[in-house]
């Protein structure tokens, strides 16, 4: 029923169409590298160079020392403040994201151990930055106090707090898989998963709808090409391109960020292959639903947004409420993301991922099978 030569000539047409569009080629091959660069460098929840202002009403040696304790880290950039400023005016005019208020007599109270007080006022507009900088501030202030008390009398601290510094319990930690805590190690496998999804789902859907919109589907209808042959001819190029893109991004991930898959690379491609069944199937499904490329694009983009949001790309699924976690469980990208990350970062073996393999296989069978049945070679 399936004619090999028909598929070959159909494939040739598709490849010519892609290869002769220079912009398309640029998009397919340059886009992954650009995205890798942008995301790899930009995406980090690490907070640095927070603009911090001091309102020093004390102007003592102690308060100056506290300020200098803050200036020695790259987490804070100290910005000047006028004496007429209040924390409110500084934050309102976006001059700083946090203000430390040192009250008058801070130095005196510190020396007398009179329980001096400090206030940190934070800009809550960006809650994440505010929480993290608040934690940084307390850390710096604590070590400042420790140093101050130690320099006066080493026993003072122990006396005051009823405990010694060294006799207490000490926590020794080790970071596995990623001792330098590089964010890029986590985000780059994620980008690979996203790229594979975009190419296979968006581009295949648009390419199928394009024939409808331009009217060349009618020409295809009168040819003896069967539905299956048409789909194979349409999908194989994007299937191949996805693999090429994946290879390109893995190579560049290594060249630029030094991120190298520690796991089994053939396994990575095997999993991607199974995952591509799902995304290509979704691509066909989108194309049957849409009559113009614009519709296809928006529908695909709609799916992408939710796959991304609930796929653990930026925000871990484990943090979400149970109801939303349940929705995330039926998100194929979520499972693929886990697979790529486990394989690239942890060097997991196939047996540790066989659950994901079965899930992805089930998704692939349902999506591809269902959409092939639903696809009609008609106008």
């Amino acid at each position, binding site marked *: 029923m399936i004619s090999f030569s028909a598929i070959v000539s159909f494939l040739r047409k598709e490849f010519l169409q892609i290869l002769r569009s220079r912009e398309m080629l640029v998009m397919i091959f340059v*886009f992954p590298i650009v995205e890798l660069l942008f995301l790899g460098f930009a995406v980090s929840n690490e907070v*640095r160079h927070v603009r911090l202002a001091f309102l020093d009403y004390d102007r003592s040696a102690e308060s100056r020392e506290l300020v200098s304790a803050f200036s020695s880290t790259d987490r804070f950039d100290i910005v000047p403040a006028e004496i007429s400023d209040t924390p409110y005016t500084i934050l309102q005019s976006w001059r700083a994201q946090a203000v430390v208020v040192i009250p008058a007599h801070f130095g005196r109270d510190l020396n007398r151990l009179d329980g001096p007080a400090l206030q940190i006022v934070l*800009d809550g507009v960006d809650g994440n930055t505010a929480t993290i900088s608040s934690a940084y501030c307390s850390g710096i202030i604590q070590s400042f106090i*420790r140093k101050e008390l130690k320099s006066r009398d080493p026993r003072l601290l122990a006396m*005051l707090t009823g405990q010694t510094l060294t006799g207490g319990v000490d*926590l020794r930690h080790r970071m596995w898989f990623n001792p330098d805590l590089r964010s890029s190690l986590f985000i780059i496998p994620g980008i690979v998963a996203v790229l594979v999804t975009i190419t296979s789902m968006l581009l295949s859907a648009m390419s199928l709808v394009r024939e409808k919109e331009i009217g060349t589907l009618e020409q295809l209808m009168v040819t003896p090409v069967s539905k299956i042959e048409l789909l194979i001819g349409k999908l194989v190029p994007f299937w191949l391109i996805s693999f090429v893109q994946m290879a390109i991004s893995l190579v560049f991930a290594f060249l630029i960020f030094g991120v190298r898959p520690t796991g089994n690379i053939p396994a990575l491609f095997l999993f991607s292959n199974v995952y591509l069944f799902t995304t290509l199937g979704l691509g066909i499904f989108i194309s049957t639903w849409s009559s113009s490329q614009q519709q296809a694009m928006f529908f695909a983009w709609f799916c992408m947004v939710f796959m991304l949001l609930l796929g653990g790309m930026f*925000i871990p699924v484990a943090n979400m409420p149970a109801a939303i976690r349940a929705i995330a469980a039926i998100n194929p990208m979520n499972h693929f993301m886990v697979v790529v990350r486990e394989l690239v970062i942890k060097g997991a073996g196939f047996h540790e991922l066989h659950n994901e393999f079965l899930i992805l296989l089930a998704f692939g069978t349902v999506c591809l099978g269902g959409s092939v049945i639903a696809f009609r070679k008609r106008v």
Partner: protein
Amino acid sequence: MNLKRVNGIALKEYNHIIRDPRTLLILILMPILQLTIFGYAMRFEIRHVKLAVRDYSHSPASQDLIRKFGATEYFTVQVLNSYSVTPQMLFNTRQAHAVLTIPPSFAAEKGTDRSLQLLIDASDANAAQLVLTYCQEIIASEYGPDLRRVLDVRPKLLYNPDLKSAYFFVPGLIATILVMICALLTSISIAREKELGTLEQLLVSPVTVSDILAGKIAPYVVLALVDAFLILGIGMLLFRVPFLGSFAAFLFYTLIYVVAALCLGLMVSTIAKTQQVAMMMALGMTLLPTLMLSGFIFPIRSMPWILQQVTYIVPARYFLLIIRGIMIKGNTTLELWHSGAALAAISCVALLVAARRFKLKLQ
């Protein structure tokens, strides 16, 4: 520019939009669903981290410590009975995110080495850092010196004391969705004329470049504003996001931003010949930078220097500051003029490029 001709093109474009209910549905539904999911699902703090404990001490002290970990929302504690399970196995099978080892000497006298060992799966560096901080906090509050008695530090959050994530996402989503509709839709709408060959019909009609551009833009401005108000409304009603500033200032700056986004979309459409290419370019030039480089999710000041320079040409960077300022801080028009001027400058440059490249000729 002739108002009548602009009207004609705008009407045609309006019909395109209104007679494609599926696209319209997605354009209305997407922001609503996105906002709801963002509002409920997005949390940066980490909870229920799977913590495996290897207790070699088996003492009241160690059991007390384990209870302390279990009592917090941060950890779901699992005490390992078998000592043959290695951390590597736990991490690779994803049964644990962190492994705490309590040594046999833990119950010993003070003064001896009572160090705990904590292994963290750091593939997600940010999460690992948070897990470590939580553990350190728990340990410090149990066994560390209480420095609070020496110095009283009072943190205070202005504008968003309860740290609601909606305060953060609603302005960001307005910026993202406006760009998506303005830049993506206009770039595609002109590329479609090229691809379907209807641009030729426009070329032989007595319209000028500025007529076409203005007529193409107008309906999308309206659509974008409708979406912006929709998000704003849901954000205020469902998530109780405040709106402290003046509505006039919001409208004024939103219009400037919309124009900037539209000009970028036009620029893309003058380069792209097919809708596929237009879409990919618009994605790459507008949507991704808006998400990544505007400071919406990732702080600009933490980025490498070179990327920080790139953010200066991302319109959303300025608009985000404006909209957060107006909604949450109650900034006035005057306090935000720097950002408004930057947006206007970007639109001028993009419009100049687009007008120069958009020719009423076939190649």
